[in-house]
């Protein structure tokens, strides 16, 4: 039975609403420039990636082959140790963080999680869900961990294995915690057992493509990482990648063997379409295509900072590798027109496609015209 006219009309309205809102959505980290029409025919199947993508599944309508290729690409981008990585496509960055903290907690049941004030709120929810002990560490003004606070905290709790939740690009300020500093601190305090999980939701697809990324990935001391698929790459469905060292995953797989499956993925049924989309995106863009998106986005971020500052608006970004441009919270009238997520006294725009100089100029004008003299 076809849809009733009223229902069809509701869908039409929703479509129009999305079309109107899309150009105004400048505060969220989503590349909205993509074309997946070549994959639409797969929507006629009930596909499901249940289980470990590296172990096979009895449910044969899956995209595990494609998922493995996607995970391998991200392992390469994050310099995961050759032959010692494992991962899967998640339903977003939060699941990747949950997976990393799960591995950490299984390895160090008495461990204490340390995370900064600038960490995404979902992490506190994960810690509560997993019943893991945690202490919040102060942040510096720029959004990075306060290393003095972390050092003192580690020193006082030297007897407890630390699980450090590092932000590779904080939500509001795009700040990147320095993994080399954290590793050096752990060595200096002679802490034998520790774990670092890196939340690289947005920056995880930027830093592999810049000249001077700083210490941020497995090669710099991360034990697990979470990266979003729908952010820099762009995908209409939320998705992400969880990556961890295989030796650790194998250890916890043995621990959970009692449930009758060595599979450590968090969900049962898993999305089989998003791995296909990520695969399609990686194949059609190639490394050069992604590098070009990164270059254009960073260049636009520099432009936005310059334009805002020229309008006497205090704008800044964490460093030259950040597409997050932070500034004082806009007046309500500006917030009404543009889709921006403020936090307390600040807000930001994220300069991902299709945003361009024209959009930035319009936004800066709105800010300028509505600021109190």
């Amino acid at each position, binding site marked *: 039975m076809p849809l009733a006219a009223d229902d069809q009309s509701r869908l039409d309205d929703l479509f129009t609403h999305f079309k109107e809102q899309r150009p105004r959505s400048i505060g969220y980290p989503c590349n909205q420039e993509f074309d997946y029409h070549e994959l639409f025919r797969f929507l006629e199947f009930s596909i499901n990636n249940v289980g470990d993508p590296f172990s096979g599944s009895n449910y044969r309508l899956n995209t595990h082959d494609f998922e493995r290729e996607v995970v391998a690409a991200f392992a390469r981008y994050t310099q995961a140790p050759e032959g010692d990585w494992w991962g899967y496509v998640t339903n977003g960055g939060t699941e990747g963080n949950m997976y990393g903290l799960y591995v950490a907690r299984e390895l160090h049941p008495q461990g204490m999680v340390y995370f900064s004030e600038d960490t995404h709120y979902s992490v*506190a929810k994960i*810690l509560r869900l997993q019943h893991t002990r*945690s*202490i919040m*560490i102060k942040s510096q003004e720029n959004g990075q961990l306060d290393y003095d*606070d972390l050092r003192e905290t580690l020193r006082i709790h030297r007897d407890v294995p630390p699980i450090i939740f590092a932000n590779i690009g904080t939500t509001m300020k795009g700040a990147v915690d320095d993994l080399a500093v954290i590793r050096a601190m752990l060595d200096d305090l002679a802490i034998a057992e520790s774990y670092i999980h890196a939340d690289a939701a947005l920056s995880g697809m930027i830093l592999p493509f810049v000249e001077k990324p700083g210490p941020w990935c497995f090669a710099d001391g991360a034990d697990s990482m979470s990266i979003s698929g729908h952010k820099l790459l762009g995908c209409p469905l939320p998705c992400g990648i969880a990556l961890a060292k295989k030796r650790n995953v194998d250890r916890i797989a043995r621990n959970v063997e009692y449930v009758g499956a060595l599979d450590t993925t968090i969900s049962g049924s898993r999305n089989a379409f998003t791995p296909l989309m990520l695969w399609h995106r990686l194949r059609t863009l190639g490394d050069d295509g992604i590098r070009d998106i990164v270059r254009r986005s960073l260049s636009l971020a520099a432009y936005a900072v310059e334009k805002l500052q020229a309008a006497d608006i205090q704008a800044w970004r964490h460093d030259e590798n950040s597409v997050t441009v932070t500034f004082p919270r806009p007046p309500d009238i500006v917030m009404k027109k543009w889709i921006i997520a403020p936090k307390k006294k600040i807000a930001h725009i994220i300069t991902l496609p299709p945003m361009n100089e024209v959009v930035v100029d319009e936004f800066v004008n709105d800010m300028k015209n509505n600021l109190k003299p």
Partner: protein
Amino acid sequence: MKQITVLTRKSTDELSRVVGILADAGINIEEIDAERVEETGVIVLSVDKYDEALRVLSSHGLRAITQNALVIRMEDKPGALAAVSKRLQNAGVEMRSMHILRRDAGHSLVSLVVTDHVQAAAVLADIVVAS
């Protein structure tokens, strides 16, 4: 009786604002106590509709803390939270989480979730703001 702690900016209007929000939602306040901690107003109240009060306060952008958390005030210096956690550990109280709620004027307001709320409040009596 269930208790809620609300953090506000220091302003004479904030107490009446909180009372107004709850009254508009048809929630009765059974007890209320307010004090200032540097730049922050701390309002501790007991209400007849606990979950509804939490929802309505949060929806108005207010930081409402449930009764299973202790709120402490401490000096804002490196390792301060770890030192508190150590005090609890030495007293045999297990700490689940510590969250910085607000930092200003050289001090932090922190929410604390522990296994033994009463004992923790006694151990940290010198820095507890709301328990």
